[in-house]
């Protein structure tokens, strides 16, 4: 069980909880990459708490790369550390750090089943009749053997995936290819932007001066005709999928290395108690 947090207060809660590992960093927003001082503090906090540390990085422009290079220099000096990367440029620079283990982030794995209306779309466009095409919509881009081999050749050992039950059989195939799987609970990213919808909604003028109102604010977006809601947090839009007993049973028994719990206003998992509650709930579902 691994917990992701993007600020130090939340990190303290995660470290004091019963999760096994702790992730720190920004998965989606380049402008929320912590400073080097914050990263150093976070690293010490996690290590002092006796937990494994994983650093999470988003898609970045050149200015983000500049920031990350200094941070990766620091982490490389601390022994073997996993780095979740969502950008090919970050994968490129990770090749220069022998101690840092590249872990493929969700933005570098295409999963058509993230589409909110996939089932209806397949039914509507008669794809099922095309024989086998329906199955493609349960796969990830890594299920094509040359693609996974490409990333393994780049040193990638693990990959982040979503809690999408129809994809679970294909996760099993990835695990058999020797990849460590980290499955994110609850939040499935549907779309992502640099023209941050939250910042624009709340009247922020520019990325550099953004006051980061998303730290504790998130929004439910509903259109009455659409029949489903989306969640807006930071510069990403999510679907929320709650784990059910039936879906837990469908999970590949030996394939998943870890579950990732994201600390977020959407899931209201913001403190140690909530993390432990969820861990307990998952154990009950699995038993």
């Amino acid at each position, binding site marked *: 069980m691994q917990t992701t947090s993007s600020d130090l207060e939340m990190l303290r809660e995660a470290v004091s909880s019963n999760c096994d590992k702790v992730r720190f960093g920004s998965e989606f927003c380049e402008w929320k990459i912590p400073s080097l001082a914050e990263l150093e503090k976070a690293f010490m906090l996690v290590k002092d708490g006796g937990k494994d540390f994983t650093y999470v990085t988003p898609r970045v422009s050149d*200015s983000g790369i500049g920031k990350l290079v200094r941070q990766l220099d620091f982490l490389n000096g601390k022994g073997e550390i996993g780095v979740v990367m969502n*950008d090919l440029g970050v994968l490129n620079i990770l090749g220069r750090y022998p101690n840092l283990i590249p872990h493929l982030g969700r*933005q570098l794995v295409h999963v*058509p089943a993230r589409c*909110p209306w996939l089932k209806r779309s397949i039914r509507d466009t008669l794809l099922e009749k095309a024989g086998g095409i329906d199955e*493609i919509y349960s796969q990830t881009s890594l299920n094509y053997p*040359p693609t996974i081999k490409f990333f393994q050749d780049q040193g990638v050992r693990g990959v982040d995936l979503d809690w999408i039950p129809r994809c679970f059989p294909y996760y099993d195939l990835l695990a058999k290819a020797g990849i460590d799987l980290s499955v994110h609970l609850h939040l499935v990213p549907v*779309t992502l932007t640099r023209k941050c*919808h939250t910042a624009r909604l709340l009247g922020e003028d*520019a990325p550099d001066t953004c006051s980061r109102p998303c730290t504790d604010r998130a929004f439910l977006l509903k259109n009455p005709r659409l029949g489903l809601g989306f969640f807006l947090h930071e510069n990403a839009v999510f679907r929320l999928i709650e784990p059910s007993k039936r879906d837990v049973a469908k999970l590949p028994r030996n394939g998943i290395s870890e579950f990732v719990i994201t600390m977020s206003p959407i899931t209201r998992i913001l403190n140690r108690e909530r993390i432990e509650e969820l861990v307990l709930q998952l154990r009950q579902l699995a038993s």
Partner: protein
Amino acid sequence: MLSAIGESNRTRSKRKRIPKILAPVNSFESTVKVIDAGADEIYCGVAMTGKGKSFGLYRGPGASPAQLPSYDELGRVVQHAHIHGVKVVLVANEPFMSDELEEGMRNHIRLGADKGVDALMIGDMGVLSIVRDLGVNVPLYASTYFVSMNCEAIDFLRKLGFSRVILERHLTLHEISEIVKHSKVDIEVFCHYGGCSNINACCYFYHLRMPSKVKEEWRMMASSVGRHTAPCTIPYDIYEITNWGDKLLCNAPVMDALTYCSLCHIQALVQAGVVGLKIVGRLRQWHGYGGVAMDVRIYRKLLDRIAKDSAGPEKLRETVSTLRKEYDQLMIEECKRTLRAQGGGTVKYLPYYDFYCKPKRCIFSNLFNAPYKEQELNLREIRL
């Protein structure tokens, strides 16, 4: 000292280069039109055969009116383009590959190379492996589906054999300029239409794959606000999560950050040294009215003007203003011509300025320059 002079000359020569205009085509007829309008390169897909015929996450090689109908048609397109000195880029940029789709993609690439295309546009490592496996000797362009936003990503793609990289749409002029300065491959950017609200490769709204019932509902909604029918442009009610149930805004197009035009920024892009300016709209060709050819025409005129003299900002503003008016005249004529050919009917047309400029739909505007803030869109505030 010598190397410093050399570097400076290289930078200057990069800055003098006039970028190529890349136009989308989906038929032989549209090819003739955009080449006539001044396109330097064209890009197109072909409806894939086999299982891939029914598969298309975006507008990759699946069945869609955005594609050329057949490889024979591709042959005709290539022949016509080459006669006019225009290059043809074949898209093979589905950001996804699977065992089931492999055979269709192999055929697509092989047939494209046989027909003489000048480059392949790739957006997935699996597809790249197929190209390598086939040993096809055609230049490779890295699609926007690789979401290239920094020099390291471009260097990574260069090492994989790509000779041109198409940048992610959400970059600022300054970021583009820095990338061009430091990259060893050609850099292409989107200049007209298709300035999506979200990063394409990370967007799973799949508006082209929407069920027809939903599409119909959205069309009804869209007609009330005069907008497009896509999940990122329709209005939403927005609830603050920390106070469950509290509605913050009603009926707000919160995700609509679509941008369309970069006429006013072309001079800056020329100075930055980009090699290609891409006009989006393979599907727009299908709607008729020659919109893409009109886009090509005005960008051609502007680039020719920039190449001819180094016009100052004031003169360029005048030129852009004149081109917008010219565009309106040409479009109205084109619409009339199309209607005559159809034997009557009506069509609505919004002048260039009202469609693009008034709502500030500029591709290279500030990242947080929210178009919906600038419009009177009935954003009714309930509670902050």
